[in-house]
């Protein structure tokens, strides 16, 4: 079972301290807790590789791959993940993990929806343990989980050979039904009833994941998930950056500046 424990941190005051939580809340990350997706993260990584020449090559390849990625997304989320992760082929494990921290601090945290985090903390205070279940790679999710004080998460993992990413992914690939299977295993291991658990996701591909849980919630749903949510009478929640000082920019175009800025920093060895 793919359970990852982030570095243990002391529980917050609002946390249920009376032993095992009675329920979990499983959160998708991209588009649900944060207004970014895996493509943003991949672009950030490739723009922050050690050598300028390598950056150009990797980014050019990513751009050329966009039609292929689009077709893969249209067919199957798992396929998209696999194609996208091929972009990391040849990147060292150390670099990936080092940049993970930086990406989290400089980009991801700024793009978290404040009200999503408010809800996560509210759930935690109500004794519902947060768990991240995402298709993002572990080197991105682990630093975030640490910052959010989330003990458990499920993320995708790359296969490495002699310290370099091979571009392949380890099973299980976190997408669609794999997410629900992971949640079932996770809950069974802790004797938690899935019917009492909450699930938050934004994509139609997460339908099997949401269906497996007692309290599915569609967050900023795409057109097909919105239809499914209405049809199944699931709550629909909408997060945005509207209420923040950063405004809509953070959700739309500012990410480009973020990772370009990151690229410049990367060149100076930051």
């Amino acid at each position, binding site marked *: 079972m793919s359970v990852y424990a982030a570095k243990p941190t002391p529980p917050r005051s609002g946390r249920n301290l009376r032993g095992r939580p009675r329920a979990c809340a499983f959160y998708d990350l991209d588009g649900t807790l944060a207004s970014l997706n895996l493509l943003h993260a991949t672009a950030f990584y490739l723009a922050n590789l050690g050598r300028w020449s390598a950056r150009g090559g990797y980014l050019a390849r990513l751009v050329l791959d966009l039609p292929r990625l689009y077709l893969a997304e249209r067919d199957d989320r798992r396929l998209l993940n696999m194609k996208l992760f091929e972009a990391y082929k040849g990147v060292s494990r150390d670099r990936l993990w080092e940049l993970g921290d930086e990406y989290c601090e400089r980009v991801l945290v700024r793009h978290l929806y404040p009200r999503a985090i408010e*809800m996560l903390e509210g*759930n935690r*205070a*109500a004794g519902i343990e947060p768990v991240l279940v995402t298709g993002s790679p572990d080197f991105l999710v682990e630093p975030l989980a640490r910052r959010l004080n989330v003990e458990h998460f499920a993320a995708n993992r790359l296969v490495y050979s002699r310290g370099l990413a091979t571009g392949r992914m380890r099973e299980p690939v976190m997408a669609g039904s794999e997410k629900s299977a992971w949640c079932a295993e996770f809950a069974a291991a802790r004797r938690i009833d899935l019917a009492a658990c*909450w699930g938050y996701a934004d994509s139609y591909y997460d339908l099997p994941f949401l269906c497996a849980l007692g*309290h599915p919630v569609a967050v900023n749903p795409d057109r097909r998930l919105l239809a499914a949510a209405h049809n199944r009478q699931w*709550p629909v929640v*909408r997060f945005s950056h509207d209420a923040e000082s950063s405004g809509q920019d953070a959700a739309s175009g500012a990410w480009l500046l973020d990772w370009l800025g990151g690229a410049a920093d990367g060149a100076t060895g930051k």
Partner: protein
Amino acid sequence: MARPESKLKELKSAELRHEPGARRDLVVTLNRRSAPRLIAYGDDFMYEKLPVGTRVIYPPPPLEPLADPDAAIRYALLRPENADPLFAQLNPNMRVTIAIDDISLPLPQMRRPDIRERALNIVLQTLADYGVDDVHLIVATSLHRRMTEAEIRRMVGERAFKQFWPERLYNFDGENRAELVMLGKSDHGEEVWLSRRAAESDLLLYLNINLVPMDGGHKSVAVGLAPYQSLRHHHNPATLRQCSSYMDPTRSALHHSANRMGRVVNQHVNVFTIETAINNQMYGGMLDFLQKNEDRFSDWDRMRLGGFRWTLGNMSDSLRRQVLNQYAAPYAMTGVWAGETDAVHRKALARVFQQYAVPVKGQSDVLIVGVPYICPYNVNSVMNPVLVQCTGLGYLFNMFRGKPLVRAGGTVIVCHPLRDEFHPEHHPSYIEFFHRCLRETTDASELERNFEAEFARNPTYIHMYRYGHAYHGVHPFYMWYWGEPARQHVGRVIAAGCEEPEVATRMGWEAADTLDEAIAMATSDLGRSASITYLHLPPLVIADVE
């Protein structure tokens, strides 16, 4: 200065028509030659022959409207009850908050200009004339859903909307802890919480619409601008069980509690209440036959009824719902009063009863009510089963003063298709309440004990209430509790025309395919001696049961 109503030439005759004695003909006993009766049935109507001997109670005709509502509003502000005139209370440096009833009133929505728009324009002009700039408008939603921008614009009108939205015209937020303040406790230990802005204002104006006698009075401020911490003191099974009728505030523990809390508010805040009453002209023009006695239908009425039902029947569910929600009633103002809350409410209540009250002799074994497509909590939304329960047992059962229309242990027949259908963005917690809580128990006290706190504190529901357009997580509980006096009083509830019997079973009701079947089930023990009453809606009627 004479009241504007006195200028009406026909007022005297209009009043005479509404003397209780003149209303005996509103109670009709059916015979073999009686026409079928129209019965509200969700977003459709039943047109059914009822058994011979059935007593049908019709609403009184609409009261004459005020000839010049704007003049009446100005008069009320100049000659308030037990208070100084509004202008005399104003100075340029003061902080004023105007609270307004939300979309739950009136039903259906009224044609523009809404009464609130009329009154607001006059009040805002007065404030501007006296140099009062620090003015906020709060839609008193309490734990109801936030009204949308378009709904608020329609309600308050262009002028107020353009001037105040969104910084100074907004929905009340009962979960914004920073904007709530506890004023104290009533002599019964009830915590009185209020919107901070309202509490810290030099003058709080509350602008209300009295559709039924349950509305208005201290309930406006003490409930409309209050969070869960306050509401839980009276919106609970124990209090509601002690209500004889929600429509008789003098015999309603709910109102007694709201009055106690309202008086605490009035000790801290200078409240200037503006109450309005409307007539029951719910349907007019091509749909005016809906308010008629079916025995007096002309051929033209029957043609329109046939066309209306054919049109509704050939629409998709969503289109039908949309069309019905677009309908705006030609309600007209029948009175407006301003000043001290209790004095104002007494006058408003008298006018409301003048509109609705019909004397009725004795109770019956069976009460038939038709639940329409709309209730206070599903405007522009879906009538879900919990709301059908609330409307049938909570509102329509309570349309009485004195004694209930049905005897203790009798049967209520609720006409509604009763579908397992909810609006996931307006009523998210209702879905869980219906599918999880009601599956375990229908006992209101158990529901309160086992689930209420969990729902009230649920972060997802709180988020949807604060930032979406969802009713508060605890709201379905209140809707269930609302039916508590009826559940305590009647022996059986039968859903007639029920499309999904499991929905009825989940709520502890019985299901019948047709109204005939429901009547047969209800009268099976009593046979022909069973007495049946049908409360004819629309519009609204309150039975004064002797």
